[in-house]
């Protein structure tokens, strides 16, 4: 086809040559129509292929299986926890404190500062959570009272499972609301046991 075109593009002389030229032009447009179509199909399928590939590439960054601590876990029997204490035993692995208030009620709180996500520590002598990053302070209920933290710390659902153990479910979250005590906002986050 290309050879043909090259031949026809040579200058032709006389009337006969002109008519021949017209016929060829018609043929040419037919060719170019087909060529245009095939070009579109070619580039189009390449574009489609690359689009699907880049979507797959993005999806690739989201793993299906995580080798992290499970989001639901058991933390022992209620009798193991003395009232008025913060248990930091599950902080490292699960990022959760198990807290029992003076009146015996339980709740589970995420060990994550609401400022920028560092891990505060429970200061037993001062009865407060203190964040080492920027100095935010929280009461035992998670209510913030000093430093840059914008709101109280978040809580997780805690319940008693069939075998009588406390169970924390991190998929159910009670986010702290600025200036409000989560004990009052979320009575369902507290567990009487």
């Amino acid at each position: 086809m290309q050879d043909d075109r090259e031949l026809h593009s040579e200058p032709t002389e006389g009337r006969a040559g002109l008519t021949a030229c017209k016929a060829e032009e018609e043929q040419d447009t037919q060719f170019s129509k087909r060529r245009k179509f095939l070009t579109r199909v070619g580039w189009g399928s390449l574009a489609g292929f690359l689009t699907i590939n880049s979507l797959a590439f993005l999806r690739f960054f989201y793993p299906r299986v995580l080798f992290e601590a499970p989001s639901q876990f058991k933390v022992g029997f209620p009798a193991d926890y003395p009232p008025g204490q913060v248990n930091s035993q599950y902080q490292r692995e699960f990022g959760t404190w198990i807290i029992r208030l003076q009146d015996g009620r339980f709740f589970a709180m995420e060990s994550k500062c609401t400022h920028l996500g560092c891990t505060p520590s429970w200061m037993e002598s001062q009865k407060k959570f203190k964040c080492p990053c920027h100095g935010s302070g929280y009461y035992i209920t998670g209510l913030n009272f000093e430093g840059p933290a914008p709101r109280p710390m978040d809580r997780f659902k805690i319940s008693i499972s069939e075998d009588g153990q406390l169970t924390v479910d991190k998929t159910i979250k009670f986010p702290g609301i600025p200036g409000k005590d989560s004990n009052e906002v979320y009575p369902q986050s507290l567990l009487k046991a």
Partner: protein
Amino acid sequence: MKNLTEKVKKNPIWKSIFRRDYRNNVRDRALAIFGNVFLHLHPVQVRESAVKLRFTWGMGGITFFSFILLVITGVVLMFYYHPSIEQAYSDIKDLEFQVPYGVILRNMHRWAAHFMVIVVMIHMFRVFMTGSYKAPRQFNWGIGVILLVLTFLLSFTGYLTPWDQLGFWAITVGTNMGAATPLLGYQGPFSEYLHITPYNDIRFALLGGAQVGANALLRSYIWHCVAIPLISIILMFVHFWRVRKDGGISRPQK
């Protein structure tokens, strides 16, 4: 001695490498640039005013120099470093206290990294103050901005590699900022209506999980050592090429 030099120069191996004799004239100087794969990106001749240090400060070149230094020291450091949470920190200690020349390599890498971030910003400042971003150089300014961001990202991802407290919390805070980004992170506005959770947002993709852990270290290592340098190198070539195509390095107007 002269005889020996002649002999070496007539040797087919010598000739195959250097192809032709070099005389210090205009033609040969030009051919040395044309014929060299590394130098041919550079123009064969530049105007005298283009090499005025008071105008360009040479900051772009110094940035490139520190990048080369970082690639070399970085590749050497990789021979002793395992990107795993059990080994990373002790590997850095090993490099600092036991590996021969390890401490100077690590510190060269660290200081060159700080240096590059500073110098690339001074380069940008110079380009801005001399108006070198104006037509026809707008496109190259855009490339430069991307390269600036990539430099910051290289610096940021390298910060986690020692797996120490500084790096760990920097990545924690940095990825939490990603989590708070509208439409991309689970803490952004309307995220609950858009079903963005800690398990499908941008932070998850950056960390390879919902926590800063083994996957996060590996990912930041791969971005730091392979992916971002590759993208940067490609864009650097475009950047240098466009400097030349847009009329050569910016120089004082008369």
